[in-house]
């Protein structure tokens, strides 16, 4: 186990930000801290880096107490959400900063520093741009300078705070793939904070989901996606549709239709059923299931988006195969049944 976080709690002005969080990373692992804004993920990252002190709990790295060390002795590379590059220094000077800051005895020679800077610039694919100031670089390039600067101190652990947060969608996707490659090459234990579930699921070896300062679930992307521990996780990891149901004899009864339940089965009684927008069958006319009227059919896309107004109130937004959707028209009466549901 590389990093071990034990029962961390933190309160800002009487508002609890982190509640008794425990988690760990394996050596060389790529871990995502995923959660909506205000879930405490950035605070947790800053506690690991040493920029915040927790009220309670412990942080250990390879069995050494990390909290006892000041920030500058932790050897943790941190890439800030807005990069925090030194604006009056060139990219190369930014990258060299950590090496120059070492005590004289440990400081590499000027030549070594220059070589290392060139090597890192090349690693982050910014060869020849070392003389540029941050204001002369694009967002994606600044991001990579910040990463190279963090890597220059040869950290034991790399922390990334919303690494793609300030970039546009196309650059995000490119950098995401590139970052994954880089991680595979360096093998550095990495924790990154994100509120983008797609990013977390695509990049991370494991995902830790945070909600209101507490750990909601932790597992591989596959586990958290297919075995969500709570309605929150299910809802956060993808679009979801929910409606009231009645649990009876191991199935969810929704408007007269019995629907199989996946995941944990709750006790009989009233509950809320959840499914994804693509988990519905739609048949024309009336039958067991949710009676509805089609509001709109949108066919532009790999699948169709069909909006229905439920007779019982509320609306459902579904994703249906194009051939099914082509048979539907606005104001058609239909019956909607989820194929399977999760119930919490």
């Amino acid at each position, binding site marked *: 186990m590389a990093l071990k976080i034990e029962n961390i709690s933190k309160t800002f002005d009487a508002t609890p930000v982190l509640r008794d969080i425990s988690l760990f990373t394996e050596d060389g692992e790529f871990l995502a801290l995923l959660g909506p804004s205000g879930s405490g993920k950035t605070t947790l990252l800053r506690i690991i880096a040493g*920029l915040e002190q927790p009220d309670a709990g412990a942080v250990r790295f390879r069995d050494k107490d990390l909290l006892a060390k000041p*920030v*500058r002795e932790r050897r*943790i590379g*941190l890439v800030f959400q807005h990069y*925090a*590059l030194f*604006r009056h220094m060139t990219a190369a000077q930014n990258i060299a900063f950590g090496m120059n*800051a070492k005590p004289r005895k440990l400081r590499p020679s000027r030549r070594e520093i220059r070589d290392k800077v060139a090597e890192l610039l090349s690693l982050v694919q910014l060869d020849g741009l070392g003389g540029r100031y941050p204001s002369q670089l694009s967002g994606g390039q600044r991001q990579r300078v910040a990463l190279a600067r963090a890597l220059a101190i040869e950290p034991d652990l790399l922390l990334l705070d919303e690494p793609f947060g300030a970039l546009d969608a196309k650059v995000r996707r490119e950098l995401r793939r590139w970052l994954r490659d880089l991680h595979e090459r360096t093998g550095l234990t990495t924790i990154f904070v994100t509120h983008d579930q797609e990013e977390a699921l695509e990049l991370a070896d494991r995902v830790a989901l945070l909600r209101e300062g507490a750990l909601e679930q932790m597992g591989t992307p596959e586990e958290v996606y297919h075995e969500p521990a709570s309605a929150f996780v299910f809802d956060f990891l993808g679009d979801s549709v929910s409606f009231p149901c009645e649990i009876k004899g191991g199935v969810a009864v929704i408007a007269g239709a019995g629907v199989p339940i996946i995941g944990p089965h709750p006790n009989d009684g009233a509950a809320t059923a959840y499914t994804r927008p693509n988990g519905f069958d739609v048949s024309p006319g009336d039958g067991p299931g949710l009676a509805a009227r089609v509001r709109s059919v949108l066919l532009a896309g790999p699948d169709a988006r069909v909006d229905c107004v439920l007779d019982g109130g509320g609306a459902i937004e579904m994703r249906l195969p194009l051939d099914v959707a082509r048979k539907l028209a606005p104001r058609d009466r239909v019956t909607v049944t989820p194929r399977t549901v999760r119930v919490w």
Partner: protein
Amino acid sequence: MSDPSRLERRSHAARDPGPMAAVFVVLTVGFMAVALILPLLAVFVEALSKGVGLYLNAISESDALSAVRLTLLVVVIAVPLNTVFGLTAAWAVTKFEFSGKQLLLTLIDLPLSISPVISGLMFVLLYGAHGWFGPELRAMGIQIIFDVSGIVIATTLVTLPFVARELIPLMQAQGKDEEYAAATLGASTWRTFWQVTLPNIRWALLYGVLLCTARAMGEFGAVSVVSARVRGETATMPLEVEILYNEYNATGAFAIASLLALFALVALIAKTVLENQFAGDLAAQRRH
């Protein structure tokens, strides 16, 4: 900012001033001409009205030179003190959280809102012969009021906010992330200050120092209360101007005044040059 049409509309509005803008410009320039430029010109005209020879005599007189020396001495002490204070206060206020921060910010502004005359009186009440600490100071053989030290202290207090006020908004806007980044990269607080914080605020700092200098040179109210106004000993340039003027020595008064105005103009020009530089820096930071 990303909306190009909005950007265009705005720059269009800026290009096309319209009649109202012309009225405002004329009013502003007219007011400035009457209230600022004309009087300033008058100072130089009056100073040179009796000929260059008399002017040069007036400013090379021993009392005049001593006033210049005293003013420079006050500047050389008050400005560095307030530079250090401004840096410390701005650093404390913007990089750390502590209770009473708002109170400190308000207190920093206080010398700007109270009349300098009152500042001077406060010092008389504290350190004057009959003031709170007067007897103790006299017992120790220290004289502050009516002495050069009183002038320095009064000027320092009156010019205290200038550096701090330039730095605080800039440092607040810049945030703490660069300092944090430096810490994670292993830099000591000392190194971080010299290599990260100071270069980021250098223009604002210089600008504040210049403002502080200009203000320290021209300080009259507080200094006139605490100074003995002895020509050649405790008369700064503004005091010298007043003394000469009251003695009906217009040429002398205006000669010193013109020197003082010249100093101020030099400071103003330096400030403008810096401001341009500073604006470029700020724009770069905003792009950053």
